[in-house]
């Protein structure tokens, strides 16, 4: 809290930022509201409401295409988790090298390389990867998808982590070194905790990027393997089919579930005393 001429001003607040944030959220959720509401529609139209019904959810879980969608959803989620984890790990290691090591040679080249997956247009990555994988005999299947995903997730994980690290001075680590900490300890106990918001941001970005990818996955996947985007792609391009709306709503519920879980986890992990101190530290 700051004081100026006796008045207490909250230095964190900026007028207009809250409405903008709310506008942001509204814009993000509005199209989804439509999808959610019409997933309960009794007929398949997206413009006429004819009554509440759970038939599309029934179709998703027990209909003809249920096994396909279930497997696709499982594939998508597992690939996203695995790819985001690997990509984040690689990104952290790269960020430490780029931003903390003095005499890293070829720093510019490394920067270009790390961001390469971001810069190459998706269709080019897709076709080139397919041709390349076929040429080296990497049989298309689950693994090809995973590898391709890890590659393009790296820059998305790297950039937030690097941005975060740039605001952390290395004085703490130097102090640790002066106290005879090994580099590994300095990293683990000092740098890593400070970097966590960046790592978290990077992980989240990588996760949603992987979950969403269609073009690259479509080209490098093995025959018969589907991820959620490839399984539903046709259904959506021609106008969203109601069972897809049901799947989307379910996905939303799952992710909201994650949000709730993490909120509860954070509350449980906090000692009431440290919680008050943390709140004060703003």
């Amino acid at each position, binding site marked *: 809290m700051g004081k100026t001429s006796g008045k207490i001003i909250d230095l964190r607040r900026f007028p207009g930022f809250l409405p903008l944030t709310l506008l942001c959220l509204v814009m993000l959720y509005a199209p989804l509201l439509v999808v959610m509401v019409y997933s309960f529609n009794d007929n398949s139209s997206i413009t006429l409401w004819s009554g509440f019904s759970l038939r599309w959810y029934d179709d998703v879980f027990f209909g003809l295409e249920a096994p396909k969608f279930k497997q696709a959803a499982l594939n998508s989620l*597992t690939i996203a988790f*695995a790819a985001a984890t690997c990509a984040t790990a690689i990104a952290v290691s790269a960020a430490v090298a780029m931003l903390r090591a003095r005499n890293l040679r070829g720093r510019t080249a490394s920067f270009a390389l790390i961001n390469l997956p971001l810069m190459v247009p998706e269709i080019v990555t897709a076709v080139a990867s397919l041709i390349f*994988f*076929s040429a080296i005999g990497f049989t298309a*299947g689950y693994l090809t998808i995973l590898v391709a995903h890890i590659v393009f997730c790296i820059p998305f994980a790297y950039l937030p982590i690097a941005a975060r690290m740039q605001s952390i001075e290395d004085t703490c680590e130097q102090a640790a070194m002066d106290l005879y900490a090994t580099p590994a300890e300095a990293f683990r106990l000092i740098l890593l905790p400070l970097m966590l*918001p960046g790592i978290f941001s990077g*992980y989240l970005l990588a996760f949603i990027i992987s979950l969403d990818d269609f073009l690259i996955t479509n080209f490098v996947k*093995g*025959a*018969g393997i589907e991820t959620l985007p490839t399984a539903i792609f046709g259904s959506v391009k021609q106008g969203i089919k109601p069972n897809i709306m049901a799947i989307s709503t379910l996905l939303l519920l799952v992710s909201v579930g994650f949000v709730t879980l993490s909120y509860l986890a954070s509350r449980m992990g906090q000692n009431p005393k440290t919680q008050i101190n943390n709140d004060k530290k703003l």
Partner: protein
Amino acid sequence: MKTPLTSTALKAAVAAIALTGFSGLAQAEGKLSIYHWFEYIPQELLDSFSREYDVEVTMDTFDSNEALLASLKAGKLGSYDVAVPGDYMVEIMAGEGMLDSFKSSELSNFSNIQPQWLEVSFDPGRKSSIPYQWGSTSFAVNRDKYQGDINTTDILFNPPAELSGRINVLDTPGELLTLASIHLGIPQCSSDREQLKALNNLVQGAKKHWASFGSDTAKDVLVSGDVDVGMIWSGFSAKARAEGANVEYAYPKQGYIVWMDNVVLLKDAPNRANALKFMNFLLEPENAAAVTNYAAYTAGVSGTEPFLTDEVRNSPESNPPAKPVGVFVQACPQEVQELYDAIWTNLKK
């Protein structure tokens, strides 16, 4: 910061990687790998084939003939047993060496193929393909918005004032430029300069009347009322009407396009025997009718009439008049194709 979440995520990732080892374990007696258009075969039919022949069926989809060719060229040949290309694409694929051939004796239902679809220019005698469905490409007009004569290609290329800006055209150069050629009365795959310049000028001039280019959205924009005229495939038009749009399908006097989709046997098919069983299966009148009822096009197999639903049997899209006559899209040779590609790029730049 949020250490519990991070460690949970890490544990989940490890579990996920472990799971991947198990995901591919389910084996089946026999397999079949199909490369198909989206939403062009009912799932029940695939399941019934699967049960009858004890074969595990997987199906990947593509969204255009050219995408099919591109992915097979880039490395997917050898992963699939059968694919479903359009007429001109069969010829192209044969030229690229992507097709395997079969003898008519290998298919017990070979005689079910309707005679007019036996000696087709893209696969004479049917050595690598069987008919799947055929239909036409023209356009549909929302009768609530326009009551005049719609049986002329002027609606697309020289529309009346009230329809300008309310037209959607298909985003496929093959069909759009062919329809434009039909409108002008010039032959397809022409390399005559004057004709090509006229074609170029025609589409450039007509573009300002068009609201959008869209193939997958062709039905949706008519149903939602975004446009009043939509260049569209016949079955799609029937589906649009079924969804509530008051559209009438046009048979322009200048001519229109017909096409036929075919099931082809791919080279290096991993399950050739099952592929042939599947093709044979599709030549059963009952099964061909199931596809027809689903997609609202017409089968190239005889004996399907008793199995069709009334809606499909009687729809105007499935019953073209004797005149005017529809034409197939032709695959042009390289030098000519480049000219048409230039016109298309010109159009979209």
